[in-house]
């Protein structure tokens, strides 16, 4: 019995699930955690266009050829989400790690945008 990958159909109108995400920010940047179970680095695409960051990933779990679905809570094997990045973020230096279906993105703030303590000089 041979296995097959779930079909990957291109096109931004293809139905996709918005992955659940956690987002938090500290002084040096923003961290984003996205649940994309079934995605691997080959099936994940990250794009920055202008101020927008888009993540798109397909579920790459191999399925038996003769599998018939009888119950599905995950109805579409594709995740997609677009974020607008504010201008103080450095979109050229995004760090992405995908492990066990969790995508962790680290987007640093541009150096000049990081909070700086300004020393007050006595005149």
């Amino acid at each position, binding site marked *: *019995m041979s296995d097959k990958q779930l079909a990957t159909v291109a096109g931004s109108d293809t139905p996709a699930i*918005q992955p*659940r*995400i*956690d*987002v*938090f*920010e*500290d*002084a040096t940047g*923003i961290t*984003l*955690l996205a*649940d*994309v*179970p*079934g*995605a*691997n680095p080959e099936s994940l695409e990250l794009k920055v266009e202008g*101020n*927008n960051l888009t993540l798109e990933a397909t*579920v*790459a*779990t191999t*399925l*038996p050829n*003769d*599998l*018939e*679905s*009888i*119950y*599905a*809570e*995950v*109805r579409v094997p594709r995740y997609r989400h*677009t*974020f*607008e*990045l*504010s201008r103080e*973020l450095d979109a050229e230096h995004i760090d992405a790690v995908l*492990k*066990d*279906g*969790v995508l962790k993105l680290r987007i640093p703030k541009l150096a000049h945008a990081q909070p700086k303590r300004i020393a007050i000089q006595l005149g």
Partner: protein
Amino acid sequence: MYGTSMNFPGGIVGELERVSRELEALFGQPGSAQGIRASATGAFPPINIGTTPSSTEVFVFAPGVDPAKVDVVLDKGVLTISGERVDDVPVETEKLSVFRRQRFHGKFRRAITVPEDVDAEQVKATYRDGVLTISLKRTAAAQPKRISIV
């Protein structure tokens, strides 16, 4: 779908997204009756079930869990998957703001009934890329056999 500003402090945008997700789950549900152990929409981890002539396949979408800490138990025709997903979001402080928290953190338990003809000695569970695949082979006697006409 318009992009979402990452600096928007959670609140109503997060709530609208959660509602739209639940509507999508609701209207997408199969029309047939749900099992008595079926969970409310949005339960973690989501599950898909399929069958082949020789097995039942259960796909548990559980990203970011330690497979060593997940219990998969088959008892009297009920398959139970339980475990815990450790919270990996730092605590909010004056130096750190948390804008969105949609991911599930904490203990989970899902239970589904499986057909009676499952061979309990031949259950295989593998965890890859956040998906726990449980393959339940049917007993040899239960598999469909082609009978040739002499």
